[in-house]
């Protein structure tokens, strides 16, 4: 195809070099740093062996973070992917006519707002004294409702997770809609002839046809759950007393507040292992389902 056999490589090499320098080398360097005690302003580092990892596994906050990330992943799969799928199927069905474009926009719009802006907005919605949520609830209660959604360990992390579902369900929905639109109309006609109801069409035609996209959105949702940072940082900063820490914010706090760069590097290695493994597992599971 190419006159010169080298030509295709010439196109690929610049990008490869770029990825190598800015992705792979830092990952390897980070792995190296995880065996040291070091901080950003003092020269020199102390070799610790596996001590950073030992300390992490003995730290309660690490387990709190993993649990929070896992909650985020599970709830996001249910809402963003699950509800996103239901919305996508509904919006693409014959139930709606011209209104579908309006609903598509409404659901998608939150995902284009910067996460930091959404975080700030919800910080005020959840505010115990001035917040919109408590104001609405107060309409139905006898006394003024002043619950601190982000200030109580029981609800704080779920309040932040809810905020993310509001923001990104529409985004996943759009990705699924795009896939649904590619399904050949004939498949539905055949199902119609066989006497399938709308529900049966969704289960037996739509979902199998967009299986790949459902997998992709599940993978990005789960990886996103373990890479979580901004949402927590802007609302609770990991508080109250580290109950809403996730791996990302825990790593950040350790690196930049507690001067423990090596420890933070070890957390980063763990995040990498988790997200990498999760992706491999998900892809394998999907492939086993057959094509």
């Amino acid at each position, binding site marked *: 195809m190419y006159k010169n056999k080298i030509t295709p490589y010439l196109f690929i090499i610049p990008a490869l070099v770029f990825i190598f320098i800015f992705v792979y080398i830092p990952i390897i360097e980070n792995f190296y740093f995880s065996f040291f005690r070091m901080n*950003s*302003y003092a*020269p020199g580092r102390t070799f610790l062996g596996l001590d950073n990892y030992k300390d992490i596994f003995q730290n309660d906050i690490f387990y709190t973070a993993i649990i929070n990330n896992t909650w985020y992943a599970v709830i996001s799969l249910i809402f963003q992917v699950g509800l996103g799928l239901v919305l996508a199927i509904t919006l693409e069905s014959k139930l709606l006519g011209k209104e579908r474009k309006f609903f598509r926009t409404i659901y998608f719009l939150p995902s284009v707002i910067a996460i930091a802006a959404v975080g700030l907005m919800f910080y005020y919605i959840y505010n*115990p004294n001035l917040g919109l949520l408590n104001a609405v609830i107060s309409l139905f209660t006898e006394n003024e409702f002043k619950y601190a959604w982000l*200030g109580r360990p029981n609800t704080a992390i779920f309040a932040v997770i809810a905020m993310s579902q509001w923001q990104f369900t529409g985004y996943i929905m759009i990705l699924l809609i795009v896939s649904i639109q590619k399904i050949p109309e004939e498949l539905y006609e055949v199902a119609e002839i066989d006497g399938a109801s709308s529900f049966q069409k969704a289960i037996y035609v739509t979902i199998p046809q967009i299986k790949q996209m459902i997998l992709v959105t599940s993978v990005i949702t789960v990886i996103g759950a373990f890479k979580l940072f901004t949402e927590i940082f802007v609302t609770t900063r990991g508080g*109250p*007393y580290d109950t809403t820490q996730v791996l990302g914010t825990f790593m950040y706090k350790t690196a930049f507040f507690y001067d423990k760069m090596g420890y933070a590097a070890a957390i980063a290695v763990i995040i990498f292992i988790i997200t990498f493994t999760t992706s491999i597992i998900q892809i394998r599971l999907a492939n086993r389902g057959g094509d």
Partner: protein
Amino acid sequence: MSRKLVTLSIVLAMLLVMSFSLTIGAQEVTLKFLHRWTQEPDSTFFEEVVANYEEQNPNINIDMEVVSNDPFKEKIKIILGTENAPDVFFTWPGEFTNRFIRAGQVMDLTSYMEDGWGDTLIDSVVEPFRYEGKVYGAPYRLDAKVFVYNTKIFEEVGVEEPETFDEFLTVLEKIDNAGYIPIAFGNMFPWAVSHYMGQLNAYCVPYDVYMEDLDPAVGDFAHPGYLMALEKYEQLTPYFNASSNAIRHDEARISLFNGEAAMMYLEIIEIPTIEQQAPEEFRNNYDVFVMPKIEGAEGDQSALIGYPEGFVISANTEHPEEAVAFLKYLTGKEVGQKEAQDLLFVNGVKNVVSKGEIPDSVYNTTQLVLETERLVNWFDSSLHAEIWSVAGSELQKLTDGVATPEEVLEEIRAAAEDVRAQF
């Protein structure tokens, strides 16, 4: 021929301009200056101060960068480790600065201080910038923490400024029963509780013991006074507004200004905010008192929490003499007088302002600081970062009643033990 002549003259002109600008560049010194005031009126104040200095010193160019409070605490650590480290930068004295000193990042100013500079400054305000006998910084503004209270509420409830801690608890109970929030408190960022603990520790623990415990290499927090301090703090927690860990400090302050809360533990550098932003109703009806003394406690009952803030110079600066000159200006009389007029802050220069030149509330609280024999540091700035990481979290739990004073102290002592092992 003429075309060649035109080209030649253009090239010659460019070379002339380049060499001219190069010579100017060679004489001009650029100092990188980093501070933390992104908001008005402080940001304009610094712009004017810097512009004024550049006018007085044409060969100096100040490259100013501003990063707000909490991001500043992170950025300074990163930037000090790079080639872009600022020449002159803001700092909180105590362990916050001491760790940079230990890493060789801060310039020793002792010789300059002993050369006459120190004579213009108030000793007790320079003292916080001393580490292992040497002076490393200069003060920009004094500070202290006091209870600012609504005199109308106090009058209505029938209470007076408490002298002792037990009297204080009685006052708080009466205010609570009258339906007001006794103490407004926003502890989302736990520096707020560290201000309470710094003062209570100073009251409960003998000074020498406390100072030794703050040294990360040896501190073990074994003295029973620490438990007493935590218990005293616990006694105050029922009188805070609800959800104090979910509210920011400045949000909580709103309830003080609008008359919902009777008092709040504030820094005297917040008094200008009261003068400029609080409703008239509050502005005309407030007064202050220091944390009431604790009877039977072993610490220094005359100690007042309130370390100054200031500026230091990078040890790696390429222009030490110019940086020192700029720092002297920044913390000197000329800027001090402008600071007092524009911002209502008082710096460390002797007799920088007289009574009448600034509002009485600012003057009187400044005198409070100057008359105190012993200033103690905020607990968070005093502690090693790893110990504070645990303490801040535990103190938030204590505030919510989720941990006991014993549990909190145990965690702090465990963290201190881990840190000691590193030295």
